[in-house]
């Protein structure tokens, strides 16, 4: 049994191609290995750190990016498939002024982070959930959206507090100290 992404192994490594993607609002053209995943190209060639490898099979959510606004696991998407697409990472959610986005601000204000390895991906998923016209704008809907973002520190309750702030709901239980 292996946790390596089989999809990446299926393409012979070594052949390259050029892809152009719109990364956080900027057009970036980059020569990539055909077999490279989007995550590899973002991290190794495009200076992105907010998307992170953790499971390698698209189930933990740490590598989450938004592709044309949709939550996507960049560890199981080939970089070649990102050609001509709009890619948003945690870095790109900042407002043009450099200020944090509303979701980022809510996470900071609540202290919704511990080791923080999974947090930028959580932020992107919450952002996408709140942008999704078909999803309900309430804590429960966002919670369902976050089912594919794992946090081993167990920060979920604080994250739900930040979500509650964003949707204007009272948190179920703030908990005592």
């Amino acid at each position: 049994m292996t946790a390596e992404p089989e999809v990446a192994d299926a393409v012979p490594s070594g052949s390259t191609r050029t892809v152009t993607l719109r990364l956080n609002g900027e057009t970036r053209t980059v020569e990539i290995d055909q077999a490279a995943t989007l995550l590899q190209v973002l991290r190794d060639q495009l200076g992105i750190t907010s998307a992170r490898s953790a499971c390698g099979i698209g189930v933990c959510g740490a590598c989450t990016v938004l592709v044309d606004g949709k939550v996507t696991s960049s560890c199981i998407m080939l970089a070649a498939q990102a050609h001509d697409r709009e890619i948003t990472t945690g870095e790109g959610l900042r407002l043009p002024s450099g200020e944090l986005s509303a979701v980022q601000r809510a996470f900071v204000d609540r202290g919704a982070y511990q080791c923080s390895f999974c947090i930028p991906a959580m932020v992107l998923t919450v952002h996408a959930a709140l942008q999704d016209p078909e999803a309900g704008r309430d804590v429960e809907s966002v919670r369902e959206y976050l089912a594919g973002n794992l946090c081993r520190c167990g920060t979920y309750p604080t994250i739900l507090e930040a979500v509650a702030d964003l949707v204007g709901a009272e948190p179920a239980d703030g908990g005592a100290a």
Partner: protein
Amino acid sequence: MPEVGSDRRMHDAEERVVGTVPFVLDVRVDGMAHAKAVRSPFPHARIRSVRTDDALAVPGVLLVLTGADLDADPEVNPYYGSPRPDQPALAIGKARYAGEPVAVVVAETAAAAAAAAPLVEVDYEELPHVVDANEAARPGAPVVHDAWPDNGCGSWRVRHGDPDAALASADRVYTGVYHSPSASHVPMEPMVCIADWTGGGLEVWSATQAPHAVREALEKMFAVPPGGVRVRTLNVGGGYGAKTQVKIEPLVACAARAAGRPVRMELARDEVFLTAAKHAATVELTTGVRDDGTIVARRVKVNYNAGAYALSSPIASGQGLTRANGPYTIPNVAIESVATYTNTVPSCPFRGAMTSQLAFAYESQLDDIAADLGMDPLELRRKNLLRDGEVYPTGEVMHDLHYDELLDDLERAIDWGGPPEPAPPGKARGKGIAIMLKNTLTPTRSEARLRLVPDGRVHLDSSTVELGQGSHPTLLQLTADHLGISADRLVRGFPDTAHTPYDTTTSSSRSTHAMGTALERAAADLKRRLRALAADHWGVPAEEVEVADGHVAHPGTGERLPWEGLLAATGTGEVVGEGVFAPDFGLTLLEDPHDVRGRVTVHWHQGGAAAEVEVDLETGRVEVLRMHANCYAGRVVSPLRVRQQNQGCAVFGLGPTLFEELHYQDGTLTNPNLSDYMIPSILDVPAVITSSALEAGDESAELHGVGEMALPAVAPAVANALFAATGTRIDRLPLTPERVLRALGEHDPVKEETG
């Protein structure tokens, strides 16, 4: 305005949320090559030969290093491990578990290394293997290490009173066998390390909880004098014990030495699973009570599965020994704790270390006893609680215990007296509670240095690792109060063994107390030196100089200077204060591991959990509706962070309680990925999750660590709630639907009601 008691935000909060906070995963070094391990497919096999030609032919491959190469190198001692150096950086002679590195490929790219690794041909001769620690402990079992023919990897005993006589004369005697399987820590950041010899010495970046332990191990390995190896870490993306001690660093250092270039190795998730795991454990527990519920005797035998290499098991099994009694006053006790080698992934401490397995046993059994006696489980606990002034089996007279308050808090939080909400048809509801007691690693050593520099800021040099628990702001807050300045004047970088002084490890919930105390002493030392400097400058007696509010002052003459002003006036570059916390007692300093007597901890960690569950009687699924986690904190540095630790314990603890288990088939781990091995998601968080941190209400109270206090209580609290709901006791974790359903079938509450 004191810093302690406030939720000082992490200085890098924005970067944490945006995703630009640095991890070792992000580090790149010029000219670095990449390593991929070749792993044994067999749980136990002699290595006859290794053929590397095909792998070396892959474009970009620089070298393949084998255990035989290391064995032949007179300048390397390939074995590491403390206290027992039994683990080679690459298997030498034989592989002892499926997944053990037997060779390593170094290549220009990670892709080339990964492509070449399967092309390394290893000729194996399979040997009989053993997975279960109880089988491994029997005579005639396959021997994992020739040097330890009984597979023993730690053996400890304690005896208190006369347990044989007390059990013989007890009104009732209860015996149970409780099993906790192995589990994976699953830090989200994998183990990742870069080693570089090109600067003359060895420089290492590693995502580790213990940079100085890694430094010491590598210095020993390469016969380098102390300080010859430099280990740095950054933020660590979760550890939970997996990144304690030494893990992949020896392998990467050997690869870099052979390559003559910096080498980076980032483990894939399956490799993280194959590097470290939780100790599976079997606990045989016998308890004798009087009819009124007084516990008169206890006998415990615990066998921890050490896996194929010792790591800390020889000592960790002793930590288990000291925790096995539980938080009860028992006059007659016999405990035996062993760790046993098997052909499985090496075990190391797992959040709630060594204690979760024990608390599951003693707290489950206690509710069975209560049911048998017709007593309220809470009252049975209160009747037997360990309290100040009572004697522990180690002979220690206990103090600073707070279990009465913890139980009161659990009682309130879960509304113990009230009945559970009525369950829908086909379901049953119940409540359960559990408490636990745990020592902290003792002896250990924490050193701290505070440097006042000319711009008036104070640099805080400490090797405590930021794992997300908030040690960084916590240490800043504590230091600021000790110095009487704002934490904004403090500067702290990341652990770097070339600059930050010795610290044993960031684990065992020890840093707030141990490093906090070292910093308190460093602050006192810094103030003493400032006093002396000012006294010398003004020509007055030192004892007349006051140090407060970032100033030195002499009330008699009216002289007063800010600290930076004193440095300027005296032409002083910097003033350094140093502090050390190093208790000179503890488990490893005791005379006889088979007659453990004496103090084994600087203080006792105390915590508990309460749960309300709903059991689906058709499917066996257990849903935790409500969970409360608590701990004794002494003083709370940051209410938010303590709450996150308690809630984190509740959430993390639900995994091994309900579904986490490493499965072995034919000696091979079959679920080393996050699809087949699930950890709690946000959908697993109970609808109501609350927590409490109890404080002493006394400013001089000792600070207690809070990282894992509620966790060992989570599984028994849930198991007891399941028992309350259904009358069914399950003595084996996790409480999967299959297991629950099978148990319900054996003890069908519906049938009993109607029958």
